[in-house]
């Protein structure tokens, strides 16, 4: 196993980690905002899948990956609108509606795929890559990180932007108030439902974008059930990150690295069964929770709907 530290191993590890992390990162950042505002957005898996489907559909119809991303964003938001209406406006149970929406989107996209693409399996052309000058020439890191699709840079940038907004503007505090004590925000003149609806729609947009990335950049086509739990991992990342965008990024990279480690180890000729390696990130999360469990505090009203004056 002296192949372990070769350039090939490292670059395939890093490349794989980034490629696999991006959809989870987008989903996690989106979910994080909902959770801050007190909405446990279990429907995110469905939003991602809808984003993947619509993202691919639009990209294919209009022959443009860029329009495809717009389509993915809209697709995610369409599901998010349902979530917002049912859970935020009408106060139905978030977990159950979230699961219901996910199941519904799985069925719907599989159905549409069956009638539209299952006989032809059209694929998109290879996505463009944007090399960042100079940086992309660094060995190993350069091609892995600085020679990717622009949406990768967008995802990384949004970590910074969100961290800035949460820290330097009233957004962070408004969201937290909506999650911790919506009644307090309400009587202080804030718009609890507005904040929550906004955050759910944001989640939908980010998840949809993540889905579109999976379909348009990751795979080049849509396959039913292709998100395979990435949205649920987004939920986990958001919960572990305790409100900090940077931690979502770190978590997503760890998950991505574990996924690509499987490949990298295999490419390096190692012989550990795939299933065992794939258990690692989940086991790592459990370990984190066992060690730091006490501190994993969630917003007080996470999962509860808010109705003014109810008691």
């Amino acid at each position: 196993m002296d192949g372990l530290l070769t350039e090939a191993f490292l670059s395939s590890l890093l490349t794989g980690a980034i490629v696999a992390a991006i959809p989870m990162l987008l989903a996690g950042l989106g979910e994080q905002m909902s959770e801050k505002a007190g909405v446990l957005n279990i429907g995110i898996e469905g939003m991602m899948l809808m984003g993947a489907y619509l993202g691919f559909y639009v990209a294919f119809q209009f022959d443009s990956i860029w329009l495809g991303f717009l389509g993915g964003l809209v697709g995610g938001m369409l599901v998010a609108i349902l979530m917002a209406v049912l859970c935020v406006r009408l106060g139905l149970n978030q977990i159950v509606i979230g699961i219901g929406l996910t199941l519904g989107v799985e069925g719907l996209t599989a159905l549409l795929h069956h009638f539209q693409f299952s006989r032809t399996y059209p694929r998109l052309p290879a996505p463009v890559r944007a090399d960042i000058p100079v940086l992309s020439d660094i060995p190993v890191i350069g091609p892995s990180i600085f020679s990717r699709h622009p949406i990768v840079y967008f995802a990384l940038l949004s970590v910074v932007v969100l961290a800035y907004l949460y820290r330097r503007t009233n957004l962070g505090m408004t969201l937290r108030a909506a999650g911790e004590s919506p009644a307090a925000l309400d009587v202080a003149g804030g718009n609890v439902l507005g904040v929550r609806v906004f955050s759910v729609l944001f989640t939908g947009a980010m998840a949809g974008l993540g889905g579109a990335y999976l379909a348009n950049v990751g795979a080049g086509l849509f396959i039913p059930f292709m998100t395979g739990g990435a949205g649920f991992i987004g939920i986990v990342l958001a919960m572990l990150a305790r409100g900090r965008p940077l931690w979502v990024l770190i978590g997503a990279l760890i998950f991505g690295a574990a996924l690509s480690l499987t490949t990298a180890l295999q490419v390096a000729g190692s012989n550990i069964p795939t299933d065992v390696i794939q258990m690692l990130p989940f086991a790592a999360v459990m370990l984190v929770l066992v060690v730091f469990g006490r501190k994993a505090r969630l917003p007080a009203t996470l999962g509860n709907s808010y109705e003014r004056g109810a008691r």
Partner: protein
Amino acid sequence: ADVDTIAVLTPEQGSDFGWNQQGVDAARAAAEATGVEIIVAEGLGYGDVRAPMRELAAEGADLMLAHASGYNTAGPEIAEETGVPVAIVDSPEALKPGLVADYTLSGHEGAWLAGRLAAKMTTTGTVGIVVSGEPPSWNSQSAGFAQGVQAENPDVKILYSVIGPAAYSDAAGGNRVTTSVIAAGADIIFGQGNGSSFGMIQAVESNKATDGSDVLFIDVIGDKSSLDKGHFLTSVVWDMTPVYTAMIEDLKADKFGTRSYAISLADDSVKLIKTPQVDEAAWAEVMAMRDQIVAGDLSLEPIFDAQAVRDLVTVSE
């Protein structure tokens, strides 16, 4: 026995350019050839298939082709229960006269030929095998391919990578893993993966090999050449029509369940397809080897165990 209707059951839709489509198409062809009706039950999933089997039996199917290794526990049980003969895969031990027949499909010979072709054509000296899971029929092809490569040129490196457990529809994973394998030097990818193989193809089309050449893709079981954009090298295509036809005829002759069925190079039920990307000289040599196998001058044992496959491809320097 009288046979007027057969049924074929597949876990996914019969339009996947792969296992399911080959099964359904072959069953249709066999039905036509033998003059019987056919009921197609596709997309039944990998769960419990007893319910649809009972229903098909009740609807008058005289033979049920349970076309998935996941169905080979339920198949014989339903045959016993309803008295309707069932054909299952990958279970040579399960034969039961009049009730249960087995067809163990192994494309290892075809894969071996593909391996030889790949070893002749690689310019980087590295080829890759990417799979989305490790069912026995894929293992035997992975092993066959690896053995073919080694037989042709022991210096060619073989990279082996499993996308993940049950990653059959993980197209993005297919793309990611294939990209990694290409980055590690492979310029020919032998890919097996249901839905995820579309991701592999995407990766092959959008990445250059480490020496700057185009990457080529070898597909299995189905024929995706209609989707090709200049990156298909070949496919190890399976045709189950001879198997199904023989089954129906054996059933009519009351011999069903007395033997296992298989596909082979000899009747072209396993064959390589030729694409414009194939090097003519190499193709001619590979076809010559095919004839040797058919003639019995060369014999290859299938290997079904995942661990054995890994041992074959593990690069121990």
